[in-house]
């Protein structure tokens, strides 16, 4: 090779660049780690005895955690006991408002075509004096617009579950007996079912039938309905005249006053329309204990509100019924964290829940030519229920211990003393939002 050729390529590669493969850096880095991570052996045997105060602080913390946990468990247990006891005491059917003494003369007037008012009042009051006062909770009407105070259907609480007859059969017999207004027939039919003699509650129901079959009241002069709840009704207006006998607003209204059975479907039947349910929303507070890295248990309280609506046929002349049910529940949830991040977690949940019925609130409006001419708001006690639910949720941690969560669940109520959304739509989605406190 000549020396002149040597300098020929000189400077040719000065600006030469070649993009290295991306994985090259990873190789350099991993080699680097192999080198740089080698300080580990230097500290392998390094120990430093901590001051004894560290263990004292840890032990104190452990003890106080234990006391706090015990306190919370006892509180939860006491709360559940209290709520269950209250629930048992406030069972529907036992708390339905009584017909108030001295009010009967206001709602019972003479009807010359039918039986004597005085007879009716004395009979009603006679029964009232001798038996429980929570029997008259409903009103039926005959074809001449005469209101019949009665207790058409016993609640599911009253109906014995172990009975060989289905609740529907029983209800049907009771309903027919009442509408026939034949006390002998009513008693006979009930006796034929064999139900009447089974429980004291059913014997009470016989008394109710007796009352209903003997009672005739001119509805147009009712100022106050039997439960003592005020009815804003114009003195000369009879809604039955406009609504017609088969679609009586009052039938719906007063049916819902009974111990709850059929309160929602009574409304919808009265209107002949499907009831429109709103998604139930619950607000909750729960304590959370992690059993291990993923599983946690959450006892807590929640408040649920169910709402539904049924409308009349054309929206101008007709009725609008709004039903509200409020529950306070005690729940115990078991959660599994599917995704855990620093700020949030996505989880699957299974809950057991016992709901204390707080209140029924039903609002009825009658419209004529688009104007509400009659409005009636009825409140009353609500039965309890117990169920199990499952679903998915998302919890956002706003601090180390406190999280805000929202979950969608489907609930199956295995014990339910009231007809409501969850009876009509067992797989309806419930939305639950709340705060969790991690312990």
């Amino acid at each position, binding site marked *: 090779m000549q020396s002149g050729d040597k300098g020929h390529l000189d400077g040719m590669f000065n600006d030469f660049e070649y993009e290295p493969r991306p994985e090259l850096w990873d190789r*350099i*880095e*991993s080699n*680097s*780690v192999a*080198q*740089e*991570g*080698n*300080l*580990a052996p*230097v*500290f392998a*045997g*390094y*120990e*430093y*005895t*901590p*001051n004894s*105060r*560290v*263990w004292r*602080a*840890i*032990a104190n*913390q*452990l*003890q106080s955690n*234990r006391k706090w946990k015990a306190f919370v468990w006892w509180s939860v247990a006491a709360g559940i006991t209290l709520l269950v006891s209250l629930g048992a005491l406030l069972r529907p059917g036992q708390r339905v408002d009584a017909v108030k003494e001295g009010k009967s003369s206001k709602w019972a007037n003479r009807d010359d075509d039918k039986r004597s008012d005085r007879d009716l009042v004395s009979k009603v009051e006679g029964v009232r004096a001798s038996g429980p006062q929570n029997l008259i909770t409903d009103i039926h009407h005959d074809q001449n617009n005469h209101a019949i105070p009665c207790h058409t259907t016993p609640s599911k609480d009253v109906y014995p579950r172990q009975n060989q007859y289905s609740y529907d059969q029983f209800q049907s017999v009771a309903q027919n007996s009442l509408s026939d207004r034949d006390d002998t027939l009513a008693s006979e039919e009930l006796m034929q079912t064999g139900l009447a003699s089974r429980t004291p509650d059913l014997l009470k129901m016989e008394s109710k039938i007796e009352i209903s079959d003997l009672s005739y009241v001119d509805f147009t002069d009712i100022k106050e309905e039997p439960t003592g709840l005020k009815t804003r009704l114009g003195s000369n207006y009879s809604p039955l005249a406009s609504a017609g006998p088969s679609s009586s607003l009052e039938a719906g209204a007063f049916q819902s006053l009974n111990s709850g059975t059929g309160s929602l479907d009574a409304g919808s039947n009265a209107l002949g329309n499907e009831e429109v349910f709103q998604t139930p929303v619950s607000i909750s507070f729960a304590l959370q204990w*992690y*059993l*291990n*890295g*993923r599983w946690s248990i959450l006892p807590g309280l929640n408040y649920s509100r169910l709402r539904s609506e049924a409308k009349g046929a054309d929206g101008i002349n007709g009725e609008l019924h709004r039903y509200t049910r409020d529950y306070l529940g005690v729940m115990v949830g078991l959660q599994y964290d599917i995704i855990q991040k620093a700020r949030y977690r996505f989880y699957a949940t299974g809950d057991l829940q016992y709901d204390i019925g707080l209140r029924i609130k039903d609002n009825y409006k009658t419209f004529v030519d688009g104007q509400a001419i009659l409005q009636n708001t009825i409140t009353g006690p609500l039965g309890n229920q117990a169920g199990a639910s499952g679903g998915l949720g998302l919890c956002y941690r706003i601090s180390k211990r406190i999280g805000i969560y929202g979950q969608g669940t489907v609930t199956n109520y295995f014990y339910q003393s009231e007809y409501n959304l969850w009876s009509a739509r067992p797989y309806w989605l419930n939305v639950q939002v709340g705060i969790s406190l991690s312990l």
Partner: protein
Amino acid sequence: MTDNELINGCLEGSLRHQRELYNHYAPKMMGICMRYAGSEEEAEDMLQEGFLTVFHRIGSFAGRGELGAWIRKVMVNSALMYLRKTKKFQMQTELEEVDFFLESNESLFSHLSAADLMQMIQCLPAGYRTVFNLYAVEGWNHREIGEKLGISISTSKSQYSRSRKILRKMIETEAANSNAIRR
């Protein structure tokens, strides 16, 4: 007492077993906390929080590895949490040019004892100290460090590079002082 007995006792909430486990592992874990802390008090706080987490979460120890390694992992996480919570380290997020050392840690720190090195590491600012510990001692790579501390890979490299510079300077100063005394 075996590790299994300790674990079962702790799961039952026995204070005696918890104390036993603490006595067995505390000195080693305190050594780890000292590397991450700026002072002994800080290290004690880290140790306390770390052991509380250990007792709280011992049910999640699957038993596949060594209990000591699991506790060490919990302790490092606990130290990082402590530093984050007390806002001890302020990472510089700007991208800096990182110099790559051909010289290994071994040659730089070979003549130092663990105690000497510990003293120097403790003098580092919290951010540098944390990254240096995670990279040079725990053996994490910069990607892992970035993910754990919520910083970029470049920031992690930058922090590590600076910590090395500072440590090298400390060693040189130390060596110069020693030579001066000998003379």
